[in-house]
């Protein structure tokens, strides 16, 4: 609560003597925000609080990091200054190294995501809507869900070789499984009373699916999408560090070999930006698709 001011204890009525010295009871007084007592400290605190929203903490960290690096507390081989990383990125881009690497990585991630999401959505929908679909896919998906992505990698290398296929399949695996699990749970979690109501209005099966089940499962679908995007990037990193002659992972492994810490950081920064973009994508989808939802807004 921000609007709380504890009022001063009401003065005892002057005319009548109180029967007993009543213990002061804690009381709350609520006033509109503008009426709040304006203290210098309070104004300062409000203005300084979270000027950059959710990016405040990362930016503060970056500044501290920059200062530590510039003053020599952090050695360049240990962690180069953020400004160094930026200039390295620009140099790599100008040299024509970063562009193609980024392109091939994005291509892998894109194809893998497309494959994984398609399989995850189709099986999730079938499993969610049909009992036979549940029996067909659910056991398998729950088993796959407990297998760590990184543990599958050696097996995939044995099965599918060290080419693109392994990389794409690993990303697809990372994206597909969480999508299935979340979509299945979301469809099954749609309020039974709403489905019952829809049936009593005379709506046909198609109406029930399109107006009740699909929108009702949307929040869970977006949770699944969030996980899928995150895991696909994880899969991308894992796949590219094993055996690649191009791509961001290759850039990082190569830099690691030659102890070029700044290049490693360039790779990491790009991965994190990819993650950030994915998160923003889902956020804006949520803003549009879940407008109807009365949601909790933290103060």
């Amino acid at each position, binding site marked *: 609560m921000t609007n709380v001011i504890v009022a001063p204890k009401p003065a005892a009525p002057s005319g009548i003597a109180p029967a007993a010295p009543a213990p002061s009871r804690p009381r709350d007084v609520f006033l509109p925000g503008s009426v709040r007592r304006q203290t210098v400290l309070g104004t300062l605190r409000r203005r300084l609080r979270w000027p950059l929203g959710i990016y405040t903490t990362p930016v503060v960290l970056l500044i501290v990091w920059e200062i530590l690096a510039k003053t020599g507390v952090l050695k360049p081989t240990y962690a180069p200054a953020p400004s160094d990383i930026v200039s390295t990125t620009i140099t790599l881009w100008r040299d024509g190294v970063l562009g193609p690497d980024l392109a091939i990585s994005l291509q892998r991630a894109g194809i893998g995501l497309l494959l994984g999401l398609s399989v995850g959505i189709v099986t999730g929908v079938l499993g969610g809507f049909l009992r036979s679909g549940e029996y067909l896919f659910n056991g398998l998906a729950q088993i796959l869900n407990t297998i760590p992505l990184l543990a599958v990698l050696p097996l995939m290398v044995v099965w599918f070789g060290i080419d693109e296929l392994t990389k794409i399949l690993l990303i697809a695996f990372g994206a597909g499984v969480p999508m299935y699990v979340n979509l299945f749970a979301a469809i099954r979690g749609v309020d039974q*009373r*709403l489905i*019952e*109501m*829809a*049936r*009593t*209005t*005379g*709506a046909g099966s198609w*109406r029930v699916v399109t*107006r*009740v089940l699909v*929108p*009702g499962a*949307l929040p869970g679908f977006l949770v699944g999408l969030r996980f899928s995007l995150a895991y696909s990037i994880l899969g991308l990193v894992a796949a590219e560090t094993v055996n690649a002659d191009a791509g961001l992972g290759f850039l990082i492994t190569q830099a690691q070999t030659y102890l070029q810490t700044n290049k490693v950081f360039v790779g990491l920064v790009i991965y994190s930006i990819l993650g950030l973009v994915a998160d923003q994508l889902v956020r804006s989808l949520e803003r549009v698709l*879940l*407008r*109807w*939802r*009365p949601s909790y807004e933290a103060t």
Partner: protein
Amino acid sequence: MSSAVTAAPRQQTGVIVEQVVRTFGDRVVLDHLDLTIGDEELVVLLGPSGCGKSTLLRLLAGLDKPDGGRIEVPAKRAIVFQADRLLPWQRVLRNVTLGLRGQDADQRAREALGEVNLTGRENAWPKQLSGGEAQRVALARALVSEPELILLDEPFASLDAITRVRMHDLVRELRRKHHASMLLVTHDVDEAIALADRIVVMSNGRIGNAHQVALSPSAREASVAREEIRAALLADLGLASQH
């Protein structure tokens, strides 16, 4: 959806319930229950919580199947539940058109919303509605399909007293335009008297006493006849000694 039970229908309108049995495990909730509702009649089913009122209503709605007996209802029927059960992800208008087909669906929904005094709220999200408004949307959703039977399962129980009285007025008004049989389930004696053509009291899984209520709207508010019916209903419910 359920279809009508085996035999051919015996009449064209209203509701026939014959010797219906419904058990949950060992518990007999409906014990050879009989009930008929005439054409355009509003029957109020009164009884304490857990007496099987809602079970009977669900059977009439086709949401549940009887273990014995026979139920005959019109195929065109609508239900208003205790909770509004609006789809939170659809705007008010789309909630009302849920079961409608055809080009004029939106127009019909608009008219139905007008009848429950919600013109202008078509584009609101359910989260923006008050409890009374949400329940009126639910009412419009039931009316819009021009049902021959409307089942109301304690539809106003969660509303405040003032809103409830307004809803009673609204129901009376709607009955002039819509010609449907109605079954209203409630545990509120005053609500029963305010709305019913006939009040039936339910106990031990059967219909007990029935009371015809042929009073004018004002006589339903305050009159000797009203108090007599009220006293009789309280006696039926086993509450007479307290008054």
